Structures are given as C-alpha cells and as structure tokens.
C-alpha cells in the first residue's frame, strides 16, 4: 500500500511538474518556420521545458487575442502587433515585462519599438520586429525618363517633378504613372497619409489625446500634397482599388514607377526580375517621416506560468533570435548590425528608422480611422476640397470621441 501511495504521488508530481513547464505560444503563420527552430533551441538549452505552438492568421489574430485575453483563455505567450499592445496594457490584461526588457538591455532597443509597449513607466511587451516604409523605384523606368537611376527623389518637390517625368500617355490613355497609393484599404491608406501629416508638422491629436487636430493647415497641406498627385494625373485613380499587395502588383507590371512600402517587398520584387532601387521617403525638407509598426511578444496577466513565459520571452528577445524571427528588421541595435541586414536594398529602411512616428494607439483609433479614410478618398476623388475633407473628418471624429 505504501509503495502504491509513493508511486501515485510520484506520478502526480511528475504530471504537475511536466504541466508547469509546458507553455503555449500563439504566433502568426508567417513566423512558424523560424519560431519552430527557436523553440527547438530553447528546449535543448532548457531540458524539461516545452513550448507548444498554436498558429494564428492575420485575419483572425486580432479578434482571437482580444477574446482570449478578455475571457482569460489565452495562452502564456502571444505574438501581437505592436500598435495593439497598449490597448490591452491599459485594461490590465498584460503581465509587466519590465524585468525582461531590463535584462535584455533597454538601450539596445530602437526607442520607438519599446514605446509601443510602455505604459505608466512599465514595459508590457518585448518587440522583435519593427519597421517602417521606404521608397521603391524602377531603375529602368527612371533611365527611360532621363532620370539618374542611382538617385531617387530626396524631397517632396523632387518626387512631384519625377512623377511628371515618369507618367507616360499614349493615344490619350495613360500607360504608366509616376506613383500610386494603397487607397483601396482602410489601414493601408491611412498609414500612408499619416507620414505626410507628420512631415508637414501636423499632429493627429492634441497633447492628451482628447481631441483630434485634423483641421489644421498642416493636416490640410498633407492631404493636398497627396490629392494633387491625382489631380495632375501622375497617380492613377485605380489607387482607390488596391491595398499594399495590389500596389506591388502595379509596380511589378510597370504601371507605376515608384511607391512606398515596407522592406518585406524587396525579395518579391527582386524575384520578379525588376531592376529596383530603394530610398528614404522624400519629405518637405529632406528625409520624410515614416510610421512604424511591428510585432512584439506579450504575456497575458492571467497566465499561471508567468515565470516560464518570461524566461521564454527573454530567450526570444535576444538579438540573435530577434534576427531569426523577424520578417523585416529587429528592433535591437545589436541585431541590426548582423550580415543579413547589410543588403544595400535594406540600408535606406534602416536610415529611415531615424525619423519615425508610431502608429496611433488611441483606444478608439481603429474605429475612427475609417472616417479619416473616407474623407481622404473624397478629397482624392475631388468630391471635397482638402480643407472640407479635413474639417469633416475632424468634426466627425471628435463627435465620435
């Protein structure tokens, strides 16, 4: 009997200890391959520890994570968009990861990346991917238009001038445009307007984020800059049909000579055999502003295995693992110096990280950006002047606050 009891206790203890060392990690499908390799290394380095991977997708991850966190039914570690992190932190749904960030070296992180998880002086996420946009241009089309293929436009005025030269019309039909924008998708479209707003010196909100400030001359000027490209015919109206991926298709098919996108487009463009060049975003006075976003690791506040989760997050947050997991850039300065990020195509994107603004993290932002988007479209279509569009957007968005 005594033996039996001892055996039972051993089985129970064994079961408990195994369970305590198995943590679950939700991550998006595009990260699966490097994530599995990192998990294998972690399990080898930490015998007895287990990490169970659950795959999410872009379309479903936001809802799944929100519902999981609110219903206290989420796993121990989650990969989530940087710009969504603060919403959960404000509601007390995330574990404090300040200790992990300190251990990894706060100064080694690009500040804008760390800021995406900072709330009341504490850090609630560990970023591993962080990027903004840069300029892509077709070198062959530049040469054909008499432009130097090694010198992309440096200022907004130059961009406008280049667009005119790169727009080709045959028999009354435009066959090639200077530039296009992803104005067929709410998030993509607004994400392209905001850098113009910041570059013009405008702000989305007042200091304490209680009022939108879109009826300012800066905000109107930024919209004018975009809308004028359509009015002058150097940007196609089909911009209103495409998202970022559709925009890349237009570029690959030589329908446009330039466009803005993240560093993830380099590879597919090179694979398509296009002679591509990259540059920083042209601004009013030199390099413009890009909005940045990326992905972070978060730990739900309700996780019963927080210590194990934090240990794993600290492992993934190491520069070498950030570099393995990121599909674009890591936010670690150490990792950014690695060979894999030394491609000349990627250098402008790294330089561009020196002038960035984070995506808005206001709790009602996603709900209200649609209003801004509709008004941007209205201005581009010529249904409203830029001043009218921004005044309407401002009034409607403030009304909804």
């Amino acid at each position: 009997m005594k033996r039996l009891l001892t055996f039972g206790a051993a089985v129970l203890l064994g079961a408990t200890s195994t369970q305590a060392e198995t943590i679950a990690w939700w991550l998006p499908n595009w990260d699966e391959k490097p994530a599995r390799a990192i998990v294998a290394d972690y399990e080898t380095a930490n015998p007895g520890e287990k990490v169970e991977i659950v795959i999410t997708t872009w379309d479903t991850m936001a809802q799944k994570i929100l519902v999981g966190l609110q219903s206290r039914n989420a796993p121990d570690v989650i990969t989530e968009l940087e710009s969504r992190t603060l919403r959960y932190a404000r509601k007390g749904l995330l574990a404090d990861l300040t200790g992990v960030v300190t251990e990894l070296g706060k100064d080694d992180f690009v500040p804008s990346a760390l800021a995406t998880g900072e709330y009341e002086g504490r850090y609630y996420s560990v970023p591993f991917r962080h990027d903004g946009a840069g300029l892509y241009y077709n070198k062959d089309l530049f040469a054909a238009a008499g432009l130097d293929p090694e010198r992309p436009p440096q200022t907004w005025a130059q961009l406008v001038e280049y667009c005119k030269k790169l727009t080709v019309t045959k028999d009354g039909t435009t066959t090639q445009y200077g530039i296009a924008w992803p104005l067929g998708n709410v998030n993509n479209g607004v994400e392209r307007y905001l850098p113009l707003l910041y570059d013009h010196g405008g702000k989305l909100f007042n200091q304490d984020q209680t009022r939108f400030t879109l009826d300012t001359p800066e905000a109107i000027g930024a919209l004018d800059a975009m809308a004028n490209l359509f009015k002058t015919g150097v940007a196609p109206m089909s911009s209103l049909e495409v998202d970022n991926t559709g925009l890349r298709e237009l570029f690959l098919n030589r329908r446009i000579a330039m466009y803005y996108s993240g560093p993830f487009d380099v590879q597919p463009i090179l694979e398509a055999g296009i002679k591509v060049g990259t540059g920083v975003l042209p601004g009013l006075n030199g390099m413009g502003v890009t909005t940045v976003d990326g992905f972070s690791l978060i730990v739900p506040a309700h996780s019963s295995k927080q210590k194990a989760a934090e240990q794993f997050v600290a492992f993934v947050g190491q520069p070498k693992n950030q570099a393995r997991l990121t599909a674009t850039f890591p936010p670690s300065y150490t990792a950014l110096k690695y060979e894999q990020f030394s491609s000349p195509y990627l250098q402008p994107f790294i330089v561009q990280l020196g002038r960035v603004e984070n995506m808005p993290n206001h709790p009602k932002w996603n709900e209200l950006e649609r209003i801004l988007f509709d008004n941007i479209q209205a201005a581009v279509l010529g249904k409203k002047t830029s001043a009218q569009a921004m005044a309407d957007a401002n009034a409607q968005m403030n009304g909804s606050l």
Partner: protein
Amino acid sequence: MEQARPKAALKRIRLREQFAWMPFVLPGVTVAVLLTVYPTYSVVSASLFGDTAKGTAFVGLDNFAALFRLPQMELYLWNTFLWVIISSTGALVLGVIGAFALEVRGIGLRGLLRSLLILPWIVPHVAAAIVWKWFYSSEFGMLNHVLQSLGIIKRPLNWLSDPALALGAAAVLQVWGTFPFVMLMVSAGLQSIDGSVLDAARVDGAGWFSEAVHIILPALRNVMFIITLILVVWALNSLIAIWILTQGGPAGATSTMPIYIYSAFRDFNLSAASAASCLLLAVSLVFAGIYVLRVTKGA
C-alpha cells in the same frame, strides 16, 4: 380492477408510442435551438452593455441612440436600401429570364445549361469576389478590355473607384451569385403548371403574352413572393461582395449596414456592432416573419 390494469397498460403503451419520436428529434432540436438562441441572446445582451467610467456596464438603449447619432448612419441606411433594391430586383429579373429560357421548346442540352447556370451559386463567394475584383480592375480588368475592344467605351472606367459606379458594380456580383437560386425556384414553379391548361389556352387562341399574364404568372405568384423575401434577407445580410471589392469605399459609396457591423467588430467595438446587428436583425425578422406566415398558410 381486473379491467383497469390492461387499460392503464394500454394507456402507457399509447403514451410511449406518442412520444417515441422524442429521443430521435430532441438532440437535433436542442442543438438547433442552442445554435440559434444563444448567439441571438449574446448579441442582444452585448447591445445593452457598453464601456463606462466604471468599466463595462448596462447602458440600456444608449448604444442604439449612439448609432443614430453617427454622422454616416444616414449614408449607411440609404446605401443598404439601394443595395437591397438593386441586387434583389436584378437577381429576380435575371433568374426569371433564365428559367423561361430553359423552358423554351426545342432547346438542346437543357441539363448541361442548367448545371452551368447554377455554377455561380456553387462557387465559394470569397473566391468569386476576388475573381470579380480582377475582372473590374481599371488597370488590368477584362471588362474594360472587352468594352474598349467593342468600341463601347473609349477610356477604362473605374468600376470600383468611381462612387457613381461602385455600388452598382458590387450589386452585379451579388446578382450573379443569387440569380441561379431564382432560376431554379422559378423552373420548379414552371414545371408544376399543368400542361393541359396551357394546351387548352392555346386551342382557345391565347398567345404567349396572354399565357404568361393569365396562366403562368398567377401560378408563380407564391413562388415569386417567397423568392423575393429570401433575396431581400440575403441582401440585407450580404457582406462578402462589397467587403472584397471595395471595403465600403470609395468615400463611403458602398458602405452598407453589414459593412458597418463588420468594421465595428474588427475594431473591437462590440457594443456598436451588436446594436447595429440587432437593428438589422429586426428588419430581417419582418421579412422572415412574412415568409414564415406565407409558408405556414400555404402548408
């Protein structure tokens, strides 16, 4: 006493026979009720709660009031009305024409034709919408190419980025996806018409117009009524066509109530999404109620 016992046993047997269906039916009914009642309860309940200074709390009808204070609500309702009218009427007209065409005497390969015409209804809606998006593309679209080749248009039209065209273009996709249902239902209705009545009318000198007005259309009245109700309910709840083609743009030209609900849900605004869903549910229930009454009456 002796007689009472067999009587009671007989009663028990009868009762058992009377309720013998229950074990077979109850599981299905229970699942169906749970799948219908619980989500409805959940949505109605969420529509009455909202974020307050003290966290999530009961707010009564505030979410509904907030819905009608939205500056774009008038546009959403108007677009929804237009969308329902255009897509339901289009599907009805095309479906009836298709059904009549299939009944024309002497038409060959009727079965094959019917199968081909049903295809749009079978194709997964998302896949179909993506194909149509390419079809409409003002840069690479087949539609503009064909129309230009035929000399109908001189320059490519912006089917999805011109506010004047976008809602109609999206409605064409909805019509394309639903007209086969109308065609099938009308075909079934046509086949149920007694051939001898038509023969008698012809003997009496009735032309095709008289046949249609006095015999065929009255015979199809019930079918058409039910089809119309179903089409309206489908259109009221339709999201995929518009979301994939335009996401409610350009400048709100295709923003309907389902687009608002989906956007609100994606933006974590569950209270607003639930309130709008309740509103749409109420409108759909009116049509569904008429449908049920009609079917029950018919039965």
